[in-house]
């Protein structure tokens, strides 16, 4: 184990609460339609807040609200299944979310998507995630400006958002391949 980006990010993602992590890994029955539903609910909640409150930490409110929505819906859907004994196992399984994205199929899909990026875009994301370098450090390493690195990230993420299709791999079904 001990991938440096892993351990640093582990703290960050841990803070997102496992419901949101599992959800983002595509464990729902009707992903990505589910994500649009979550977004709709989060959007409504954002509108209920005073803007001045949100501006303090907008990303934080966004992800916290999304996490809450996902958790609430998961609990409600479990209640509908309350006569099924296995839902308790799901509760315990919440403690080990590291199984998302871990299947060979999911890893392969992510790899395929990464390969659609340009060479420098791949370099930029690899330096960030494998070596844990900041944007500034990456700029220094590659001998380009920070602005270029930032733009490479923007374009990579945008591209990958459209390229990664985990739902096609079946990887979301609890790690089955």
């Amino acid at each position: 184990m001990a991938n440096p980006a892993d351990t640093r990010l582990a703290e960050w993602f841990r803070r997102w609460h496992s419901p949101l992590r599992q959800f983002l890994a595509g464990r729902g029955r009707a992903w990505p339609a589910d994500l649009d539903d979550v977004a709709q609910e989060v959007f409504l909640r954002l509108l209920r807040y005073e803007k001045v409150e949100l501006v303090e930490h907008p990303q934080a409110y966004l992800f916290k609200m999304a996490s809450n929505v996902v958790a609430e819906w998961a609990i409600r859907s479990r209640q509908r299944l309350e006569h099924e004994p296995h839902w308790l196992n799901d509760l315990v399984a919440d403690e080990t979310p590291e199984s998302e994205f871990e299947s060979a199929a999911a890893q392969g899909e992510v790899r395929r998507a990464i390969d659609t990026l340009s060479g420098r875009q791949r370099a930029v994301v690899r330096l960030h995630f494998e070596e844990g370098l900041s944007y500034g450090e990456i700029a220094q390493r590659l001998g380009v400006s920070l602005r270029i690195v930032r733009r490479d990230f923007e374009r990579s993420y945008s591209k990958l958002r459209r390229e990664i299709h985990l739902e096609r791999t079946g990887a979301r079904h609890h790690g089955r391949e």
Partner: protein
Amino acid sequence: MDANSRRKMVTDEAARYWALLGTRPPDEVLEQEREQFTRWLRESPLHVAEMLHIARVHYALARFRGWSDVAVDPTEEASVVAMHPCSTEIPVRASGGRTDAMPVRGGPKTKWLAIAASLVAVLVGAVSLAPQISGQVIETERGERREVVLSDGSILDVDPQTRLRVKFEEHARRLYLEHGRALFHVAKNVERPFLVKVNDTTVRAVGTAFGIERRDASVIVTVSEGKVAVLTDPTAHGTLSSTSASGSGTINRISERYQRREMVQPRGQGEADGAIFLTAGQQVTVQKSGTAEPVRAVNPNRVLAWSEGRLVFDAVPLGEVVNEFNRYNRQQFQIEDAELALRPVSGVFQANDPETLIAFIRAGAPVVVRHADGEKILIVPRPPVAE
């Protein structure tokens, strides 16, 4: 513009906001940029959705393990035509990279703790930012959990029925835990040590994540990440006796049931001047007298699950489980039967959702659940059906 182009444009915007706001420490992000992002988010659920999609990409990349096989020839072009130029430029303040030298150990953690602070710190209820000079009180009621960001980027997860005072000074960040418990994610700053005082015990943090609980007369410190020094009252210290943990309260007993009991030699921890050093996965209980029990090895994820609103029980009597739940909820459970109260419970529960506990109890025992007096939930064994 058709729906696909519209969505694509929004995706690009979301990716820009991610790069702009998701990767810089909070003090480098301008209010203007946050304001712009907030306005953008509140324009449409599509914006929210794309932001979540982008977060998903980031998570996928974070979990990706095959980097060593990824070709990184900088001259190689993308396999598909590059995207449209940005139509709305977000002003970017040139930051020129970080110039302060990062210490070898803990350096990256600093940055990520700061990033964690910028990304996930949220205030539920009142805004609580500790001002630099005067003290500030954070107090939660029954059923109220709160996450607080401090002005240095540290994050506190505060449990219900907890009272904390925060007093940041120029050369130290001081907090006082009067009662209850909280998890502290400390933004690293060697110039300004983070000190939490409970009774006569002070916990000194060096850029880390740890939980402190004050229950009755004892103090329990659990470290999730990094290292802390626990300084007990010097006059009472000197004896790491093997006193049992009885009388330390419900949570301690729950912790004991599933933690591994490994007696760690205090000298090996680097004990000096009455300080006990704890690293990740370690816990110590300090009695009011100042005597500390031997350091225990624990699984921090389980023992600190309360900080994320999850309660973990391993063969704990239902009566105790219900007491725990009652701290997190307005609705109060009451078990009307002594035998029922003794039944062992194992599982992980969302603290603020009593329905999960009710469903669980129902699955395991014939009970009748009665709602009484507004917010009381009575649980009684179902009487046997008459012939």
